[in-house]
Every structure is written in structure tokens, then in C-alpha cells.
């Protein structure tokens, strides 16, 4: 019985200071992923450079689970561009196409969007009393896409236990393998 516990416990053979190294290693893996994300944020200019398409409202162009790379710069919006935007009070970003643009003389724009696969425009989705989107609602323009890669995110969203499970497995794996 104690042999079994000895085998299960990966720490029984590791000298003390290496435990700090193991923890730092785990931290570095998380940090590297984070830094890559931050780098993408800087490169694309968008606060969320990669989004997953969550609904089928843009079929046949995009399916649920597709991964989109977004870009955001100071340039003008154009009708027909696919943009990702967030409504105040709702945290889920929406991927739809620009239907109408009204540019005012002071440079501000009013934008109306619609999903390709939806029967009506997005006014029903906007916040109470909101008729138009503005530049500050928009997270970015869709610039590139990878089909179905984002399904993993959707599954993790639907089953949060999966997310916790994966993190725990990763942590155990990293903490129990030693550097040579």
C-alpha cells in the first residue's frame, strides 16, 4: 500500500529546491500562452484578436465553431465587411456583416449590421433604445479564418468541468515531470 502511494506521489524523489523550479515551469507555460495572446492583441490592434463563431447566423460563410482572426485600425468601415462587436450589457461578441453606414461630419459613424443567415437586421439584438452601432462597440474586422478549430472552446464553454479538468491534468503533468 505504501509502495502504491510512493509511486503515485511524484514528489517523493525530488530534492527540495526543484519544487520551486517545477512551479515556475508551470507558471512559465501559462505565461507564454498569455504573452502570445498579448502579442496578438498588440499586432492586431484589437482587444480580442481571435474569436470563435458561436452561432449559425453567418452561414454559409461561417459555421459554428470557426475561428476568426480580427484586425482593428483607424481606417473607415465599409458596407459588406464582416465585423465582430459587443453590445453593452451582453458579454458575448457577435459576428455579423455591415449593412448600412452613416458617416457624420464630425467623423463618427452609425452602423447597422445583419447576420447573413438571419431574416432581419440586428436592431433586435442591440441594447434597449439603441438603433446603431458605433466604432467603440466594434472589436475588429474579420481578416482570416480557420474552420471548426474553435469547437474546443464551445465545448469548454458548454461543459466548464472540461476546462477545469484540462487545467488540472496539465498542472499535474508539468509538476511531475522533472527537467533532466
Amino acid at each position, binding site marked *: 500500500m505504501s*509502495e502504491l502511494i510512493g509511486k503515485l506521489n511524484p514528489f517523493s524523489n525530488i530534492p527540495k529546491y526543484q519544487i520551486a523550479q517545477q512551479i515556475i*515551469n508551470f507558471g*512559465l507555460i501559462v505565461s507564454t500562452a498569455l*504573452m502570445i495572446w*498579448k*502579442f496578438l492583441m498588440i499586432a492586431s*490592434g484589437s*482587444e480580442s484578436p481571435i474569436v470563435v463563431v458561436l452561432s449559425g447566423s453567418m452561414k454559409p460563410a461561417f459555421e459554428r465553431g470557426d475561428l476568426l482572426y480580427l484586425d482593428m485600425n483607424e481606417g473607415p468601415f465599409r458596407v459588406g465587411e464582416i465585423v465582430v462587436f459587443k453590445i453593452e450589457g451582453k458579454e458575448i461578441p457577435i459576428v455579423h456583416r455591415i449593412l448600412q453606414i452613416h458617416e457624420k461630419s464630425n467623423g463618427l459613424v452609425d452602423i447597422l449590421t445583419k447576420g447573413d443567415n438571419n431574416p432581419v437586421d440586428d436592431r433586435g439584438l442591440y441594447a434597449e433604445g439603441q438603433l446603431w452601432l458605433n466604432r467603440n462597440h466594434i472589436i475588429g474586422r474579420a481578416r482570416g479564418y480557420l474552420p471548426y478549430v474553435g469547437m474546443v472552446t464551445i465545448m469548454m464553454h458548454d461543459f466548464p468541468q472540461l476546462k477545469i479538468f484540462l487545467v488540472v491534468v496539465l498542472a499535474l503533468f508539468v509538476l511531475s515531470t522533472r527537467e533532466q
Partner: protein
Amino acid sequence: MSDENEKKEKPVQVTLYDSLSMKQTLDDAVVKYITDKLGYKQNHKMNYIKVLLGFIGCCLAALAQFYPVPFPQNKPILIVCVFFYAIISTILYYINMFIQKDYIVFAVKESNEKEIQVSSTLPRYDPNYTIKIEYRNISTPTPITFTKSIDQYFDIKGYFVQDKFFNDLSGVFKKFITTNKAE
């Protein structure tokens, strides 16, 4: 000394054919031999540097993530953090690839004596474990290498036969010291 009698060392057991854990067991035994039997002190400087750099890297990441200013405005901080993180990552990679390489221990006997370094290799699917002892930073004295098949050191159940390994090690180290004293 009753302390030594009470400190019974548990024999180390590895899964047979798991060459990684076997190499680690042998490496650990080498370190133990050097520190316990020969009285060397380990030089952990590189390891401490790595832990420190790793810690700074994690702090940079935390700073980048939790800085209270929202996105477009915190771009300068993000750029600084990402840039220094990339530098730290490169340094750590450099240390691992070019400075630490195969070495398993750096040690000195007395503080003003020359430092030795020991490297070991156990190639994949090859049962021969090779250990190389040499002086650090001094290239003229000859390094001593010693190869033996690892099946000499593990029994059928996977228990590590420490005494046999230590016997071989003592021969190797004596050879190293005598060869290099003749300078």
C-alpha cells in the same frame, strides 16, 4: 551515531524500460555520490538564475494581465512586458541549450579548488549509460568517460543497486583525480 542507523534509505525503484526515469535515477545517484561520499559541494548558480528569471517572467505576465488600464490605453505597458518576456524566454532557452546541455552537476571540493562538471548521456533505445567527468572552464586536463550498460545497475524488479553503481563511480573518480594530478 544513532542518527545514521535510523536514517534507512529506501531503495529506489523505477519502471523498467522507462529510460528517462532510469537516467534520472542514475544522475541522482551520481550527485549523491559526489556530495555524500566525496564531500563535494554542489554549485547551484545556474539553477538559481533560471528560477529567478522564470519568476520575473511570470511577474511580467501577471503585470500585463492585471494592469488596471483597459486595452487600447495600456498598449505601451503591454509592449514593454511582451518585449522583456521574449528576452527572458530567449535567455532561458540559451541557458538550457548551450550552458546546461548534458551536465548533471557542477561541484567543488574546497572553495579555491578547481570546479568539476559531470555530464551524462543515455541515448534512446540504447542501454549504455555514459558519464563524463571534467574540469569546468579548463580544457587542458583530459575528461574521463565511463560507459556501462544500465542493466548492471537495476534488478529484475526495477530496484536500483546503489552499491554496485557507487563502486564503479569510485573507480572512475579515482582515475579522474590521478590522471589530472599528474599535471
